[in-house]
C-alpha cells in the first residue's frame, strides 16, 4: 500500500434529507410514443398544439433540441 493509500472512511451510516421553498413540479407525466412530437403532445394534453413550448420548458433537462424527442422519454406535463 502506497503512502497515499489511506483506508477509505466509512460513510455507510450517513443520514440525509432535503427540502425547498419551491414546490414539487406539478402536473402529470407522459411517455413519448412512436410518431410523437412536442406539438402533438401539446395538442393531446392541452388541446392546443401551440402550447408545445410549455412542455419543452418543463423538460429542458431532457430535451436538447425540441425537434428531437425519443420514444420512451418521460416528460412532465405542467398544469395548463
Amino acid at each position: 500500500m502506497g503512502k497515499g493509500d489511506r483506508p477509505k472512511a466509512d460513510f455507510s451510516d450517513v443520514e440525509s434529507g432535503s427540502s425547498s421553498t419551491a414546490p414539487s413540479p406539478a402536473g402529470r407525466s407522459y411517455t413519448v410514443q412512436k410518431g410523437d412530437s412536442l406539438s402533438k403532445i401539446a395538442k393531446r394534453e392541452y388541446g392546443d398544439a401551440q402550447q408545445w413550448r410549455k412542455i419543452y420548458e418543463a423538460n429542458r433537462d431532457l430535451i436538447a433540441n425540441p425537434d428531437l424527442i425519443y420514444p420512451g422519454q418521460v416528460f412532465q406535463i405542467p398544469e395548463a
Partner: protein
Amino acid sequence: MIRRYPAVLLLAATTLAAPGCKKSSDAGTPATSTETATAQASITEIQLGRHLSADKRVSDATTEFSPRDTIYAVALTQGSSPNATVTARWTYEEGGQVVKEDSRSIAASGTEATEFHISKPSGWPKGKYRVTLTLNGSTESKDFEVK
C-alpha cells in the same frame, strides 16, 4: 432489455423524423429552437451551516464543523424552471470519496432556497469535505472542514 434494443432504435429513428414543431408538415424544419427561452433557474449562492431559519436559509453560516454536527447546504437559485432537479454531492478529502448524493425536483420560480443536510450518528471523520450543488447544468461547490 437487450432483445428490445433494436426495436427502440427503430422507434427512435421514426420519432427523429417527427420533430417538436407545431405542424407535422414542418417535419425536418427546426421548430422555434432558436427562440429565446425563459431564463432558466440557476444557482446563485451556496450557504453552509448547522441550522436553518424558517425561510430555509442558513442561520449560522460556517465552513467549520464538529464531528457530531448536522451539516446543511442551501442552494439559492434564481430563475424559472417548472421541472428542475437540484443535486447535492458530498465528497471527502482530495480523493473525492463520495459521502452522499441526493437530488430534489423543484418547480422554481424567482428566488428559491433548496436545502440538503447530512448527519452521521457515529461522527464525521475529521478532514476536508466539499459539497457540489448542480441545477440545470450550473454547478457550484463549497469546501468545508470537520475538526
